[in-house]
Structures are given as C-alpha cells and as structure tokens.
C-alpha cells in the first residue's frame, strides 16, 4: 500500500537513474531503490547568487551513514515512524478521535504536505510549521494536550508525515502574507550571534564543504528533518538542531517553537527549494 502511494508520488522521476541530471537537478541516490532523491539543484532565484547550488546534507556524510538512509530497513528512524503510525490511529483527548478519524490514511492525506511547510495559515493569520499544525489539531480538534515542540512524540509524528512526501521537491512560498516573516528569517541567518560572532552563513554559506574540526560542513539544509542522530540515538527536529547551532556560537539560544525560529525555519527551508524531501534522514 505504502509503496504504491510512494511510486505514484514520484512517478515522473522514477525512471531517472542515480547521478543523472533530472530536469530539476541531480539525483544523488534512491531510497529503497525506487524513490529518487535530488541532492543538488540550481539555487532558487531569491538567493541572489549567495549559493550557486542547493546541496543536501546527505552529500557531506560518510558512505556508511549515507547507506543507512538508502534502505528503510537500515534506517533507525523507522522505528519511531512505526510508533507514530500507531499514535496516528489512536483516539486521544476529550473529543475521542484519532488523527486517522479525520485525516484517513497518512500516506494518502499527507502527500506533499511536508514539502510546503512552513506556510501561511489563513484562518489563524500566521505562519505555521508542521509541528504547530500538529499541536493545533491536538488542542483545537482533539481536546488533547499539546506535545513538546521538539520532543520525541512530535519528531516521530513529523517523520511519519514526511514519508509520503519523500522525493518531492521542497517548495515553500516566500511571498504574499509570509514575506515579512521570511525577511525576518533572512536577517537572522546573516546575524553574527554570540561571543564567537558567527552567523549561520559564516559556517553554512561561506564554508560548506570545509572541515571545522572533525565536522564536514554542509549547507545546513532542512529538507532531511527530522533526522536520526546516531550520536543521540534519537530523532532531532529542525528547531532542536537550530538550538544547538546557535548555542555553539556561545550565544543565548532561542526556544524551540519561538517566533524567531519559525521565521528562521521558513527562510532556511526556502534556501532548499527544489531539493527532495528526505526526512527522516540519518546523521552521525
């Protein structure tokens, strides 16, 4: 069942072999031998030449870590995905409904969703991340408690919701009602925080592909999030990663789910427009 949905989602790309230029970019690898993943794509016009290509973090990992992401049987994130699939079908809260009661099969109703978040929510009049949307359903539609923004339940649910979008191009909107939030995120990306006075760009734009200590710097893309970190033996959310990167500049970091990190997420996501959704990926 899952496979058919996945296949139809990427039908147009399925014939493209690894390493070959697809119209949208270069297919770096396939998941399960049948979901082509574009790992290099010409950078979006709104980057104004700051990057020539958007490149997936997968490209910078060693071959054994890369391999774990190429087969779901080897991907340790899949355990959390299975657990989230059970939660999806479990009634929660005072309303007594499960996610499935309203959304049906996650592999059908959530096709393409991960690729377009964060995005504008007209009713709420705000930019929403996927995590905000899930918490909104928990509190407003189910009468349940919100989950910790970057906790394990949320990370697992985000991973589950990402599965039916794998292989689809990231495509977040940056104009219209989200424009000012996007600008805020862009400004943050270039702000040199903390006693080390480093911006995201210091490491992920000026120095990607360089070693910093033992770490091979990537572009800090989020098309692969949440990721399973082997070091932590668990999933890490986008905001969890942001928190760590800001903290490492000897700065006062921002809170997961804060308006600042929502803005930064929107901006960082837009830097990867065109890359395939890879979540949940594997990192050292």
């Amino acid at each position: 069942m899952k496979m058919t949905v996945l296949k139809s989602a990427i039908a147009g790309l399925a014939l493209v072999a690894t390493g070959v230029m697809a119209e949208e970019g270069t297919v770096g690898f396939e998941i399960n031998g049948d979901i082509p993943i574009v790992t290099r794509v010409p950078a979006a016009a709104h980057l104004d030449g700051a990057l020539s290509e958007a490149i997936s973090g997968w490209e910078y990992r060693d071959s054994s870590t890369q391999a774990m992401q190429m087969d779901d049987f080897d991907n340790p994130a899949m355990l959390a995905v299975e657990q989230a699939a059970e939660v999806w079908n479990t009634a929660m809260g005072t309303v007594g409904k499960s996610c499935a009661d309203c959304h049906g099969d996650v592999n059908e109703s959530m096709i393409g969703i991960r690729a377009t978040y964060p995005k504008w929510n007209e009713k709420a009049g705000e930019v929403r991340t996927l995590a905000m949307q899930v918490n909104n359903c928990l509190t407003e539609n189910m009468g349940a408690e919100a989950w910790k923004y970057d906790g394990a339940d949320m990370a697992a649910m985000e991973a589950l919701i990402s599965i039916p979008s794998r292989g689809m191009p990231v495509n977040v909107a940056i104009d219209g009602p989200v424009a000012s939030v996007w600008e805020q995120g862009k400004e943050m990306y270039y702000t040199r925080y903390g006693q080390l006075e480093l911006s995201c760009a210091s490491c992920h734009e000026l120095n990607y592909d360089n070693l910093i200590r033992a770490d091979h710097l990537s572009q800090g893309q989020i098309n692969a999030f949440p990721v399973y970190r082997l070091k932590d033996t668990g999933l890490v959310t986008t905001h969890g990663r942001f928190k760590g990167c800001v903290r490492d500049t000897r700065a006062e970091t921002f809170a997961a789910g804060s308006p600042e990190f929502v803005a930064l997420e929107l901006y960082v996501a837009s830097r990867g427009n065109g890359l395939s959704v890879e979540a949940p990926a594997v990192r050292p």
Partner: protein
Amino acid sequence: MKSIIQMAVGLAMVGTVAMAGEVAPDDVAYDEYGAVAVSLTGVAGDPANGIKIMTERSKGNCIACHQVTALAEFPFHGEVGPMLDGVGANRSEAELRGIVANAKITFPESVMPSFYKTHGYIRPGDAFTGKAGTEPLPPLLTAQEIEDVVAFLMTLQD
C-alpha cells in the same frame, strides 16, 4: 621600556578585568592595520602553553579552523581559515598579536573570533550553555594566553 611599563601600570588601574601589568581588552592599541606593537602583559610568551591553547577545544580551538603541520599529532584540523605553516616568518609579532587579539581589525568581517574582547555581542551567552551571559564576558583568552599563542606562532618559520 620604562615608559611602556608605566603605561601598562596606568592602564591596569583603570581596567576592571585586567590583572596588574596587563593591557585590558578595551585598551589594546591597534594600529591602522590591526597590529599591536606592545606585549599585553610584559611577560614573555610561553610557546609550549601556546600549543595547548591552540589545540584545546575549551581554549583557542585554533586548529578547528586552521591546519598546522607542527601540530599534526593533535587530531582534526579544520579548513575554514588558511594554513598557518610559516606564519611566523610571513608576519611580524605585532601583526600576529593583533590578529589573535581581534582578527576583525586586520580582516574586516572575518569569520575568525575575536579572542580579546568582552562586550558588544548580539545575544551573548554563558559559554556553551545556551543561556544568557552578562557583559562584560570574560575574554575567550587571557592576555598571557594571547602572548603564549603569539610566541608559538613565531616558531612557525617554514
């Protein structure tokens, strides 16, 4: 020499962070190219301790960004900054002191951190805790640690 010592003493009385005889971070005299002619402490640097500062993560962590052949026994040299082999021959002691104390005066906008600076940060933290810190922060390196690093860099002659 006498006048230098007198000056250093004078500064020490104003500075709050500096030890007696040290030039405080706000009082370092950079020339127009960012070089600093006068020792920050008046005490000769110790190159052996300089190696420690260069390689320890909690100190200068210089090799996180720089390759140095003479420090090859210490693992994980980064590539963010240029290789430092021969830097002691290519640059004067004054230039190196200025670069280590505050590289952004020699190289505007540099990615290299300013090691002898205590305030003027955006969201300064309390070391690596992620929590807020209060300015003035202790500088990343003390005056003597900077002199020690400079003494080591001067040994890199080829």
